[in-house]
């Protein structure tokens, strides 16, 4: 497999506080990489660094192109879609308008409308709520909408920030099943940040363990799953 995204020697700062230390990380074409670690390990920062929403240096390469200097909007338009922490819902827009937003950047309107049908097929709940203000959706529905919005961008890589956060187990199940489908059927690569390590390990083929802004371990997810010492030390189960 070829590398879709390569992060080389990336550091990031919030004001004076350094959040990442020379991070190296690779996401394979069509692969699912999980980013695990405790609170404050720098998982969300890594995602923000990729789309240039935090001060950072180092090199980011997306399918051979250096995107280190690109603005967020440009990186997104090149196929990196973020499913943000807190879901980033446009609360004053309807569910449909939230999805239609992607038409602004898509070249083919017809393809975008087909993708909207696909999103509705993946999440029938969103179709039912089509005309509803997105702010009135439940947490689970807003998470589905966030995944839907990202899909509407026809991404090559999805960055998922704690998709299970604050949701009922059944809803989490549903969302992760859809994520698995998106990955296998549409070959969309994923970089997923999760508190729920067991859940992420099911979906991921590669795992990076972060501690205070540094990668402390990485490898195929089976390896981490079977390494009891590693699990106990960093994943707490």
């Amino acid at each position: 497999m070829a590398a879709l995204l390569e992060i080389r020697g990336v550091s990031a700062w919030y004001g004076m506080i350094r959040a990442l230390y020379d991070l190296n990380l690779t996401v394979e074409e069509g692969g699912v990489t999980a980013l695990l670690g405790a609170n404050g390990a720098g998982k969300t920062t890594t995602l923000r660094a990729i789309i240039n929403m935090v001060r950072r240096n180092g090199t980011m390469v997306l399918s051979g192109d250096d995107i280190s200097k690109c603005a967020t909007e440009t990186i997104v338009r090149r196929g990196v879609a973020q499913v943000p922490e807190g879901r980033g819902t446009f609360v004053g827009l309807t569910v449909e308008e939230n999805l239609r937003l992607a038409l602004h950047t898509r070249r083919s309107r017809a393809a975008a409308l087909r993708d909207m049908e696909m999103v509705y097929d993946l999440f029938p709940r969103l179709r039912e709520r089509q005309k509803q203000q997105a702010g009135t959706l439940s947490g689970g529905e807003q998470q589905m909408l966030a995944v839907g919005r990202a899909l509407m961008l026809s991404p090559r890589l999805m960055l998922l920030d704690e998709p299970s956060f604050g949701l009922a187990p059944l809803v989490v199940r549903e969302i992760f099943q859809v994520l698995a489908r998106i990955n296998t059927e549409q070959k969309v690569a994923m970089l997923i940040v999760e508190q729920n390590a067991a859940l992420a390990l099911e979906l991921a083929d590669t795992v990076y363990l972060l501690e205070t802004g540094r990668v402390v371990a990485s490898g195929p997810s089976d390896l981490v799953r079977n390494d009891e010492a590693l699990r106990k030390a960093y994943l707490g189960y």
Partner: protein
Amino acid sequence: MEFFVQQLVAGLTSGSIYACVALGLVMIYVSTDHINFAQGEMAMFATYIAWAMINAGLPYWVAFGATILIAFAGGLFIQRVILKPLEAAPVLSLVVCFIALLSIFNALAGMIWSYTIKQFPTPFPARDLFGSGLVSVQQIGVVGVTLLMLGLLTVFFHYTTLGLAMRAAAQNAASARMMGIRVSWMLALGWGLAAAIGAVAGMLVAPIVFLDPNMMTGILVYGFAGALVGGIGSPFGAVIGGFIVGVLENLVGSYIIGNELKLTFALVIVVGVLLVKPAGLFGRVVVRRV
């Protein structure tokens, strides 16, 4: 009764102009949380440009359209060149910047076209509708142009992808960028639209109040009152608020306090709304955890 209807219509006419000014203010407020104090002077300056074109022999509606385009480009330019570098500046710096713009436009207009009052033509014939003595064609024209513009804006914001992107950028800038929307350009478009709306207000009001560099000063206060009454974060509210202020101003002025205190009345409305219902009629109360 006849007098009452006349005052009501006059109120709706000036109300539609306040609605335009209020809408211009709200357009910028919703996306940046700032009140553009230069909104009125920008409109005045655009009206002078229209006056110059009409004086040079262009037909009224050609000058009208061209002025809207020039104002739009001017608003875009101001945001790109002056305000974009100040994106991270504290709010007071921006207030100073808006006040500077206000006095620059005022002085420029005086310098180029002098401070003497000028007549501005109206495209509408000076006669009554149906000869009733109640409603003039001019008044219907002003309200009509305003409503047409509001209709076009509604269609733009609700049925075009660009309008949708602008709404999204105003609501949640970070999330909009994650959708690939160039938020900074959306702000510039907002400034362009606000300036264009202001230009329409200026050209509609100039035949009534006459053209001079201080023409919009009072009107900005009324427009601001209208925006507050409707809820400063709501475009729909701004329009309704503008009409309410126009009608109230006229009725209160003719029946209770007299014409001299009309502007004071607008300020009373501002203070009253802020004391009693700060969110306005259609505004949303923003609650923040601290």
